[in-house]
């Protein structure tokens, strides 16, 4: 039996996935968490064999989970709807064992769990191919800056909103421009939208994220 823990901020998805896996016979439920802190506690107590973790956990990012776990952590699979190379790269950089899309059939998910439980890795070759050249994901603070840039805020407005100096905002932008080889605020914004880092539709409600 492989004991599986699911970290997802949508409880129905977590429950449905675990139920479906339990039906397959060789999986057991180790627990469910919806936050990073909850996941850390769950892993410490239940010691699952494999963790399936969503990348988008409300305000938190699943990418932050692996380094927070007490070593040695069990293998982690990112189970997400984000089909973007930069997230795959972040998973690889973070030593994550697998990357499976939520759109994948159940059999594929089960196969991935079995593979990583035996010490293997589960990445689609298409994902690996693109991940090599994928850009680095901006940090949480950088994303806050970018989403305000995309909304047309000036540096001083961003500084006020994030309670930082304008010079710090400029520093963030200098590094972002350099890192992504962009030359204007508009270019940077569209680049980040294309990469799936900021969501134009949720931008109106983006205030509460910051």
């Amino acid at each position, binding site marked *: 039996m492989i004991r599986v823990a699911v970290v997802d901020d949508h409880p129905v998805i977590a429950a449905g996935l675990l139920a479906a896996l339990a039906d397959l016979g060789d999986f057991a439920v180790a627990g469910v968490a919806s936050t990073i802190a909850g996941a850390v506690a769950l892993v410490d107590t239940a010691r699952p064999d494999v963790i399936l973790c969503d990348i988008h956990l409300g305000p938190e990012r699943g990418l932050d989970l692996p*380094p927070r776990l007490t070593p040695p952590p069990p293998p982690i699979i990112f189970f997400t709807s984000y089909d973007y190379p930069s997230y795959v790269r972040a998973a690889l*950089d973070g030593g994550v064992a697998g990357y499976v899309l939520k759109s994948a059939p159940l059999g594929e998910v089960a196969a991935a769990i079995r593979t990583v439980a035996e010490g293997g890795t589960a990445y689609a070759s298409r994902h690996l191919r693109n991940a090599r050249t994928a850009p*680095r994901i901006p940090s949480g603070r950088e994303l806050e800056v970018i989403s305000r840039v995309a909304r047309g805020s000036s540096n001083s407005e961003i500084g006020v909103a994030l309670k930082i100096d304008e010079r710090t905002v*400029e520093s963030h932008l200098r590094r972002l421009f350099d890192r992504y080889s962009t030359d204007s605020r508009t270019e940077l914004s569209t680049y980040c939208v294309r990469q799936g880092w900021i969501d134009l539709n949720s931008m109106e409600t983006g205030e509460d994220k910051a």
Partner: protein
Amino acid sequence: MESMEEAVSGKKQDDSVCRYRVSTQSARHVGANLRRRLRAAALPLCCVAFLSSAAIALALPPNPIPKLGGIVVDDSSGVVISVDPASGAWDMGVRAGWYRVAEVEGMTDYSDGSQVRVVADHYYSPQSGIDLLLTSPFIVLGLAGLLAAARQRRTGLTIAVGSATMASWIWVGHLGVIGQAMAVLPIGLASGLPLQFGSQLRIGPWRSRSIPARARAAMAGVAVISAVGVAAVAVAWGLLFGVAVGVLFYTALAWLIVVRWRVVSVATGQGSHSRLAIARAVAFDMLPYSDRVRRRGAQAERDRLASDLHAEVLPAIATAAAALEQKGQSEEAERLRELASSVRDLVSDRRLPILSDFGLVSAAEWLAESLQARANLDIEIDLDGDNGDRRPPAVEAAAYRVMQLALDNVMRHARATSAQVAIAGDAQSLVLTISDDGLGIDAAASVRAVRGGHLGLKDMRTEAEAVGATIEIGPGSPRGTVVVLGWHG
């Protein structure tokens, strides 16, 4: 005087041979004869001199621009710039640290990472036709004066006026405003001559053989007015020239900004921008980050040097050390390895152009970017409370080194997901704080014990104390480690 000269001139054709024979009879006649022969030769000599100097003037490059020794490049909008690969100067404005690094298939790579297409490798010389047009009245006047003086048999004056006029004509385009005003003198003189000796030319109203004093005075007046007029035209032209230069300068400056922007756009392969869009981008977006391009160039140069050293010098030293070892000279081999290690330190750590050229903030940004690219760690830079001043180089170097050691610890031992570098203060003070959200100093120390590394705490302290700064290393809140460097000038 005119009538006497006229009489001599009239007889010349008939009895010159006879006179020559007679003049051999006495020394007095020899001198007079020589003068006469010189006078006879003056006109053809002057014509030859005039034509040959005109030929020389035409053969010369019309306006030898101070040679930049560079190339002429052109971006997609057709703007021409000449660039000096040695000094990085454009034909207007200076771009320090910007030079050609490679040339492939008609594209030239520059050290700032931009690429431009090389269109031609000759110089753009904008005047020549215009020069000739502007100076042609002076040429005509000079020529007329020359002819008049020659017919007057005034050899010395003819040659002097002729050569001065030609010198003016040849050089007027090359002189500054003051030089052009000076050049007006011989030109004015030359323009006065045909009027002064107009009677000999038998043109216009001066047909009569003897000219009344009133008419002569009128002629002199006309000559003076003409000279003054020419001078006025030259001065006005000089003013016009000055205004034109000013306008051109500002236009060129604006264009250079736009062109640079375009070059950068081409280099990064990001779409095409309309000129208006570029101008707006320059005005609203680019200016705060204007030294970014230069910085990229400096860093590219540093990276190139480092990779050369790593690829060529260090392996060569290692090979030499191995060879010495085989010969049993292990002491020398060890010395060589120490040399290699100090070279590596120099390249990778201390002599950072980005630090010396652009300061601690830029160096911190660069360090954060390069560390981030290698590790799964977000490094944030916080400039709240920093006014952007530069500190003494030694202080900046020590601060950078401490930052480097502290971040190295974070990456190796702390298991942190994020780190923060805060720089605050002014030219006389610096508070550098490096914090992380990792295991904390005690746990990191135990990890270190397992891995057999060292935390570099002593190195940090040494660096700080060398410049009179204090350093504190302690646990962070709620977790992680905090390193604080404090300095007061």
